[in-house]
């Protein structure tokens, strides 16, 4: 893995500068059934294809952002500073 990831703050940087923060997903509402929580906590799409995920610029600006990436060839289609917090993070980032 050696692709460049564009940080919305710092520009394209080596992926080793970042921490992967997992797939973006919506946190269940309080009181949701257990199966919903279990899916939120343990089920991952692990897509062979386009994935929307959280990244943290560990060795840079120390900010979280969202990147839409094709996991098959690590092409980053889009990266944006988040506008919605992780508790409703299934909205498309940015717009």
């Amino acid at each position, binding site marked *: 893995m050696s*692709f460049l990831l564009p940080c919305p703050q710092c520009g394209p940087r*080596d992926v080793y500068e970042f*921490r992967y923060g997992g797939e973006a997903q919506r946190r269940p509402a309080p009181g949701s059934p257990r199966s919903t*929580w279990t899916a939120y906590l343990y089920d991952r799409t692990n897509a062979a294809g386009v994935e929307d995920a959280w990244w943290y610029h*560990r060795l840079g600006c120390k*900010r979280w952002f969202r990147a839409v990436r094709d996991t098959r060839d*690590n092409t980053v289609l889009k990266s944006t500073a988040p*506008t919605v*917090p992780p508790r409703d993070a299934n909205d498309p980032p940015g717009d």
Partner: protein
Amino acid sequence: MRMTRQEISFTFDGRRVQAFDGDTYGSALARARVDVISRSFKYHRPRGLLCCAGRCPNCMVTVDGVPNVRACVTRAVDGGTVSGQNAWPSVRRDLFGAFDRLDRILPVGFYYKTFIRPRAAWPVYEGVLRRLAGLGSVRRTPRQADHATKRHMFCDVAVIGGGPGGSVAALAASQAGARVVLIDDQEQLGGHLAYSQATVTGDDVLNGLRGPEASARLEKLIRENPLIEHLPSTSAFGIYEGNLVGASRGDSLYRVRAKQIVVATGAFERPLLFHNNDRPGVMLASAILRLAARHDVRAGRRVAVVTEDDHGCAAALELASSGFDVTALVDSRPAASDQERSAAVRSRHIPVWEGATRIEVVGRSRVRQLRFDSGGGRRSVNADLVAMAARPEPVVSLLAQAGAKLVFDGSTGLFVPAECPANITAAGHVEGISDIAGVLKSARAAGTRAALRALGQPVATPARPLPGAPIGAAPPPPATRKAFVCMCEDVTVKDIKLAIHEGFDALETVKRYSTATMGPCQGKMCHSLSAGVHAGITGQSVGKTGLTTARPPFQPVTLAALAGPHLAPERQTALHDRHARLGARWVDMGEWKRPFIYTTVAEEYRAVREAAGIIDVSTLGKLEVTGRDAGEFLDWLHPNRFSDLRIGRVRYRAMTDDAGIVLDDGTVARLGPERFFLTTGTGAFDAVEQWLQWWLAGSRRDVQTINVTSELAAINLAGPRSREVIKRLTGADVSNKAMPYLAAVETEVAGVPAIILRIGFVGELGFEIHVPAEYGAHVWDTLMDAGHEFGIKPFGVETQRVLRLEKLHIIPGQDTDALSNPVDSGLGWIVKAEKSDFVGRAGIAALGSRSGRPLLIGFEVTGGGVPAEGAAVVHQGRPVGRVTSCKLSPGLQRAIGLAWVNPEHATEGSALSIRLGEGTSGTTTAARVHLAPFHDPEGARLRGGG
């Protein structure tokens, strides 16, 4: 480079070898007529120089203790110690050379067939086989890699290859305004031009120059070009994702990140197949010419040239022009196709033999004769050198690795790149263009194209002419026992035949079974050769067989280069030299160095319990959380509540994730209406900060966090007399009334601003004092002075661990793991279930439906001994829990600890059995569950009443 002729010397297997400054070890050995430089991998056959370009395995030696150094491209150093490898007692006389006669009982894959019974004996066999086969030995003592360097480079265009094509491509790219990094594995630019007598055409900067002049011109132009950085003697070993070129030179690693990559790896001769084609003195024609031109070394006097295409004529003419006595041109084809060239060879009185078969080299440690059938009889030609002159083949490995599609050009019999990925351009001979004018034109165009693309201008790739139609089946390889396909792994034509016969009929399976192409040369010598042999045996065309998958590294890389220098950061607290002066022993905690112990646990323990002790807790993570919504935000992240914390108070905190797992613990002090001071464990800070930041990302909450970990030094003053000590240092009222347990006060200590937290991890009256780091040492000194008459002593992490165990205070990460929830960890009291929602609420709520969960309990050992951390708690021989912490308590004179046990064993007073040794055979000791703290269970001392 023949600039100076200063004489130097080194030793080879104990023998002194004279050399000139500028020689490589290989050229010096050739000059000194040392024929045998190495022994082959399996049969221990004598081997000498073959490629003289750092590609083949034949000249790998150990230089000053470093194994597998290629002598032919390594500069000779005065006083160097060089030794041969894989031989005993020496490469010249290797007793294991007898294996060469055992080839009938050591066929390909023999170790899969011979040493399989009894199974248990394999480790013994393996040890012996390992000793007998292989390369150099790794030094037993680890080599410091501090000299290793790692360099990150960024450029518009990276050019791989510094031959005529690569050099011109680099110049063209720079002329278009691109910043260029030119990576070349040779010391000098210009590639084969250095030993070519022909006149160069095809590019304005070189037109009309002879080879060596053109080479010098390129070297000068590139040296003077400010936009080009040239990395000489540096091998590009891989092209990776994100247009990253990995390259190395010795123990230095280069990571070159380029917008565009031009691959100008050129073409290279490969060996030909005939009996004893690996004897010392059998060399690639280019290697002989290179040695002569670069180092003024004649590897022999009388050369017989062996060929199978028109390249043989060219090589014979070049060799003759370079002063060699060419004794024969032996061509395996019935007739040369380039009659003009062939006539030129004959006109120089070089005997030409066509339709040669059963070619054989005679001579053991050096070529003496070349024999073959031609013109109806057995011929014999005297020679001390045999030049293998096969048409150079494009070096397509890096391109293939990078994802280029290769096609087989039937008209030339070569694999050439058909389609390259968007950011990669092939240039020059690697494209299959062999004439110099064509190479330079292709390279100039490729360099310009790459530069324009890198600078943001779209340029179309010119259409490539379609390759010629596929030719028929490949000719069958010679039927001889000792025609080597793969020099690295000693794989012969016969071995490949046998592998195919045994059913490994696909090229990739032949590769895996025979290990052909898998040695140190990474297929540079044998990639297409083995494909050709495979095609010949199976009766296919090479185009159909294809090549095996190319993977990095293209060239071996030292582990030191990959590991790089040891640059692990080390953090020291502001009090570090105070600890050093006190003779502290250190312990690493994350990046931090902390005092483990100063004197003895017993002495430090006594000071804390009976008088006063101080410990440097600067490594605690410290975070200021401010803003209108700070209180609500901390409520959200914790099972307990902070929005109701009064200003001037501190509260224990433990954080959970949504699964209800304990992440870390610490304290939160409220210093103002919108200002909280949060501490974390030493190792947890980064994770906690990132966790907070994540929940704040995109949030409209008015919360800011500031990392003040390094800004503040922190000292914990603990013990029954600690109040008397601190009283002398501050004007603040430190009485229990004014500053009770869990008070948080901003004041001055020893004349500097400080935050005092009335908390006590070790279970005594305690003051955690946070001061600006630059005053840390001053405050420490003042505390030590003030505490002198009370018997104050510094205590280390080890003593602190013992003290806290007597209170059964847990350390998340040590006593909890990725499955521990607060309820079962004994932190159930922090969970405020009435809170509407918080991170972890759902996970904690779900616990109710799971019964039989293990619980974290305290225990005391009644049967003697100190169980190790991780020791099993057993019941009737079955594991029912495990120890997470255990120390000998000086106060109780027995071991105490924390353990997770199944609930039926978790009641007060339950008898436990804990293993002392490893595994199931270990002895056990008796222990008893103890749920209340051992020390001061009511917390009277901690609260420090009175």
